[in-house]
C-alpha cells in the first residue's frame, strides 16, 4: 500500500451554508435556518477526513455533485452498533 499522506490539514470550513442561529440571540425574530430537508438541495459543507490508503484530507460534499451519495452520520467511533 502507498504511504498515506501526513495530515497537517487546514481546519475545515464546516457548513458552507447559513447555519441555524442560536435562538437566545434572536428571541423575537424569525430565525433563518438552513436545515436539510428531504426533497430539497443538500446543504454543502467541508470537513476534515480520514481516507484509508490515502491519509488525511479535507472533503466537501459538493466534490461528489453529479453522483449518487449516501451520507451516514453515526454517534461515534468504537461504539457498539
Amino acid at each position, binding site marked *: 500500500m502507498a504511504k498515506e499522506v501526513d495530515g497537517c490539514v487546514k481546519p475545515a470550513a*464546516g457548513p458552507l451554508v447559513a447555519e441555524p442561529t442560536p435562538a437566545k440571540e434572536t428571541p423575537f425574530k424569525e430565525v433563518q435556518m438552513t*436545515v436539510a430537508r428531504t426533497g430539497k438541495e443538500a446543504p454543502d459543507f467541508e470537513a476534515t*477526513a480520514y481516507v484509508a490508503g490515502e491519509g488525511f484530507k479535507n472533503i466537501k460534499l459538493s466534490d461528489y455533485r453529479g*453522483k*449518487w451519495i449516501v*451520507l451516514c452520520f*453515526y454517534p461515534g467511533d468504537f461504539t457498539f452498533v
Partner: protein
Amino acid sequence: MAAVAAKYPEFQALGVEVLSVSTDSRQVHKIWQEEELSKMVEGGVPFPMLSDGGGRIGTVYGVYDEAAGVDIRGRFLIDPDFVIRATEVLTAEVGRNPDELIRQVKAFQHVVATGEVTPSGWQPGQKTLTPGPDLVGKVWQEWKP
C-alpha cells in the same frame, strides 16, 4: 458503519459514493479503522470518514444531539442533482438496515431513469406504475399490497 462497509461493493456497483460522519477526529477515525473495523470487514471502511467536531454539520442536517455532543444515526440519500431523496434518522441504540438503503437506491435510480413510480416495497423487476389521469381510481387494477 461496518455493516455499510460490508455492502460497499454493492454501493459501488450502483455508482454510489458513501461518506460517513461523526464528531470524532480524523485521527480517531484512523485508529478505529486500523484497530477494529479492518478486523470486522476485510479492508475495513473503504470510504472517507469525515469529522464533525462541534457538531456544526450535524446541526445543519438536524442530527446533532447537543446534550450528548454526538451526531445520531442519520442517513441521507442524495441524487446527482444534489437533492436529498431519502432520509432516515435513528437514535443510537438501533443499527441501520443497509439492504433497505440499497433497495431505495435502486428504486430512486429506476424512477429517475424511467419517470415511473415504484409501489411500496418495490424490488427491481417488479411492477411499477406510470402516473397519469387514466390511473386515478384504477391503481387497484394494477397493484395490490
